[in-house]
Each structure stands twice: as C-alpha cells, then as structure tokens.
C-alpha cells in the first residue's frame, strides 16, 4: 500500500508525529507503539497532547509530519474519519456524545457493523440476527429497560455506557477512550472499570485519563505525555516514582 510502511507487527504505530496550531506544537515528534491485545493508559497534564493524539489517530487532525500506521499497513494520515472507523478504530469522546433525539435502541442500531453506504441505509432492514445483537449489547451495558427511551433522557453515567455499547456493537479491534469516567459517581466508576477490563480481554484499548486512582485500578502499562511527546512509560509505580514525571505532573 505504501512504500514507507514500517516493518512492525504493532497494531498502532506512531512515529515522529508533529502537529502544530499557529506555531504551538500540540504534538512534538511523538512516537508511540501499541501492541495487539494491549490495554494502555495515557496520562499527562492539560495541553500535553492527549486529545490531539486521538484526533490524529481517528483522522480528525492531519499530522504536519510523521507517520501513523494501523496494523502496519494502513496509513491513517491519508484517510478520513469514516474510512478509519470502518478499519475498526472506535473512539469515545471526553463528553459523552450519543444521539440524544434517537432512542437507545436506535443509537445501537446505527452503530451495528453493517452497510455504511447511503443507498444501503435507505433500504436496510432490521433482521432478527441484528436485533439479537442489539439486545445482547443492551444487556451487557445494562440499559435493556430503557431501550425505547430517547438517549437524551439518560443520566451522565448511562450515556457513557451507551457510548461504550455503541463501540462494542461495531466490533472494533482498537478502542480509544477519552476520559471514560469523567463526571461519574464512585459506583459508576467501579462498574466502568469492570466493563473496560472485561472488554480488554478480546480487543486493544487505549484509555486517556486524569484520575490516578482509576488509572491504578486498570493496572495497565502507562504512558506519560508532556508537551506533545512521551516523557515516561512503564507500570504505574514506575512512572509515579520517575522524578521528571513528579516534576511536571504528579508533584503539582
């Protein structure tokens, strides 16, 4: 596909990625490798480039320099959002964004792995098989009883679950979760942690997070971003004891 495709079996491969906005470098020569099946958390102070990194991977922002590859062959810096989504990369936003004027059921219906062509959607039928998959997902995210309610009527935490459910039903191989427990109660956070750990058994997940207690409870490899590049990487204990990390992030 591309002559410059790197010889790597990593699922997601970022090398030397730079993004600047009016001279401000949101990402500065960022390199990051996520292996297949990995659960990774990414932390960093505000402005460290966490969200920009997600925007680059999902096609919302084009990098000024550097390469971004999925499965070693797909050059994500050349594809648009829809094409990247169809490769199997799902994204959950920081603020829950569900379709508030559609029912829970319809939100999931739009997320099914199915024809994305305009003409296909015009004649799409809800087969029993698809119906069952939606029902199974509803049960998994605990929203079966609310399925015919408008998504706008859900609580904040329920919206977060619905959004995760929308990613689940699409069978993505890589999920990017941007602050999945922001604004959740302790109980909701606990349930979400369990859900993420469960999901991580059969897919690759990257979690961007502020909440250190939550990061610790995931028990995953941690990457610390600072000023657009990687400052440290390792277990949570390792990075928490790194003096540079303490200086820029944890110590404040």
């Amino acid at each position, binding site marked *: 596909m591309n002559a410059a495709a790197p010889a790597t079996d990593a699922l997601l491969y970022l090398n030397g990625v730079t993004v600047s906005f009016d001279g401000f470098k949101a990402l500065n020569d960022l390199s990051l490798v996520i292996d297949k099946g990995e659960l990774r958390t990414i932390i960093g102070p505000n402005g460290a480039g966490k969200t920009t990194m997600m925007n680059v991977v*999902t096609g*919302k922002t084009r990098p000024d320099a550097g390469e971004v590859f999925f499965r070693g062959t797909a050059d994500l810096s050349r594809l*648009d*959002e*829809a*094409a990247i*989504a*169809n490769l199997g990369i*799902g*994204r959950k*936003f920081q603020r829950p*964004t*569900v*379709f*508030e*004027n*559609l*029912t829970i*059921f*319809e939100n999931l*219906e*739009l*997320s099914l792995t199915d024809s*994305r*062509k*305009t*003409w296909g*959607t*015009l*004649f*799409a039928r*809800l087969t029993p098989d698809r*119906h*069952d998959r939606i*029902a199974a997902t*509803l*049960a998994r995210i605990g929203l*079966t009883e609310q*399925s*015919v309610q*408008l998504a*706008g009527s859900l609580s904040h935490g329920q919206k977060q679950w619905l959004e995760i459910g*929308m990613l689940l039903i*699409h069978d993505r191989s890589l999920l990017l979760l941007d602050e999945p427990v922001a604004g959740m109660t302790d109980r909701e956070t606990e349930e979400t942690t369990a859900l993420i750990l469960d999901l991580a058994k059969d897919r690759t997940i990257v979690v961007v997070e502020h909440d250190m207690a939550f990061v610790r409870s995931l028990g995953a490899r941690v990457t610390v971003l600072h000023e657009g590049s990687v400052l440290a990487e390792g277990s949570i204990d390792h990075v928490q004891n790194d003096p540079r990390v303490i200086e820029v992030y944890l110590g404040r």
Partner: protein
Amino acid sequence: MPAPSCGPIKNAWGPGFWAGFVACGIVLIVIVPALNLWVPPASRIALPDYLVPLLGKYLCYGLLALSLDLIWGYAGILSLGHGAFFALGGYCIGMHLMRQIGTRGVYGNPLLPDFMVFLNWKELPWFWWGFDHFAFAAAMVVLVPGLLALVFGWLAFRSRVTGVYLSIITQAMTYALMLAFFRNDMGFGGNNGMTDYKDILGCDVHQPSTRLGLYLASVVALGLGYLLCRFITASKLGRVLLALRDAESRVRFLGYSVTNAKLFVFTVSALLAGIAGALYVPQVGIINPSEFSPGNSIEIAIWVSVGGRGTLSGAILGAVLVNAGKTWLTGAAPETWLFVLGALFVLTTLIFPRGIVGLLRQARWVRPRATAPLPAGEQA
C-alpha cells in the same frame, strides 16, 4: 432477555397512517373536483372555477415546503435558496410552453418566441433546442435542479460548510441566479420572464378542464412526494440524518459518510422543488426572475416552521394555510401582510416551536416518535 415482540422501531406504514393518507386523497381527488364539476354554480358549497388553480398553486407550495422539510427538519440543512430549484423547474416547463405558442405570438414568428424577436435575435439559442418536446422539458425539470443541487451540494458538504454559513451561500446562489435571469442576454425573457402560454399537451391552458387536470397532477405529485419523503425519513438513512443533525462528527466516527448522506437528501429535495415549480408555472401562467428572489426562499422556511418542522405533513399544512391567509389578507388589507408574516414567524419560534402539528399532537395525545424531535437548545 426476551426481545420485544413488535420491535422498538416504530412502523411508519401502519393502518392509521394509510387511513389518513387515503382520506386526504379522497378529499383532494374526488370531493374537490365533484364540488367544482357537479354542484350547480349557484350552490353555496360549489367550488368556483377560479379556485381550482389557486388550490393547485397551494399544493405546489406544499410540495416545495415538503422538500425543504426533508433537509431542514431531518438533516438540519437550512437551505435559504430553495426557491431557486423551484424556479428552475418552472423555467424548464415555461420554455416548453413558449415553444408551444408557435405562430400564435404577437409577432407570429414561427421560429422564435416573441421576446427574442423583440431583441432582434435571428435564431434559436442552442439551450432552447429540444424544448419543443414535452418529454425533453419534463426530463429537464428534474435534471436541471438535480444537477445544480448535486454540484452545489458536493462542493458545500465536502468542504463541511454547515449551519448559518450554508444558509448564507444558498441565499447567494439564488440571488446570483436572479440577477443572471434578469439579464435579457441570458435568453430567458429577462425582466418580463415568460407568459402568454397557449396550451399544454394539446389542451388550452385557460380551459377549466385543463386547469382541473393540472390541479389533479399537483395532488398526485404531492402524494407521491410525501410517500417518498416518508420512506426516506422512516428508513435507517432517516435515523442517520437525525443523528448527523445533532452530532455530525460522531456520525463520521461511526463510519458513515456525512457528505454522501447530505448530498443524497439535498438532491432529492431539489428534484421535488423542481417538480413543484413545473406544476406551478402552467397554473399561474407566468414565470419571471422574481421567483428567484431571496425573500421567496425565506418564506418557504416560514411555512415549514409554522406547520411544524420535521413532521412532513406539517410542512404541507403550513404552506397551504400561510398562503391561503396571504391570499385572503392581501385582498382584505394588503399593507398588513408582511407584518403578519413576520409576527407569525416570531410567534412560532417563541411560543410553538413545533408548529401547528406539534400543537395538535400535544393537545390530543403524545405520539412520541412519529416526528423528528427538534435538536436540543434549538427552537426553529
């Protein structure tokens, strides 16, 4: 878990819907012509001949409003230049009607329409070729607005022009077309437009029977257009449209092409507007560049919001009621019309954002999912 037996997605084609649809059809196709043809003119319930083309005109406006509701109510695309597609459809049929005049024009020229003789033109411009044939003109009625919408929409939606910016460039489009059509050199009759039609498909356009036929054609076009719009909005594509209206980027991250979905409904909508224009022109007997004026396009949006945005039937109702009110008021107290129109728009926005249909549904019972709910925080 036990799956709900009927399925949680509302069936848009239930018996209740068909009963209402057929009832409206009977009133428009059977009762109206019967009141016109078989009730003696002296009777109080008789429908005089002059009202038939007037009703036909309202129905054309209804189809035009329906086309705007499809893109505005469901996909959130507020086109303020939809009058342009209507006028282009009208011009296509107007050109055919001009060719039908033949030697019966004031100058009696067998080759050229009167306005070209007046401009001292010697031969028919190439873009008038083919308009002698009804089938060619009918094809142009859909092709010209459809192609313009396809090209304009592709450029706009691909560049992700949305919201008020899109509304402004659609205004600019219709304004530019108006200025172009005002020029005599364009070859479309300039300021005066085209009028003085004699016949259509061999029937005299002034005969009551022809007018009744045009009225019935308008009813059929409106009915089919309504079914098409309902089919689109009740499909999964309809739900994609609602979703992109409220959270466009989320739809992209789900893997749908927002550009293609918008382009599809925008083009369908322009086709419907073109057909409405083509049925309108023979009934009112004239087409001129003022049909392109930006004010006309804004008025369409008012009809839709008065009737109820995102309801389809409300758009038709709004168009018919507002125009009937306009006909009555411009006769009774002409100077007040614009104030009433403005007040209507303000009232709709402030007091009943879901329009007349929304009010009716609220008053009777809540039918939760038959309409497209308005986006949060937005009123009209």
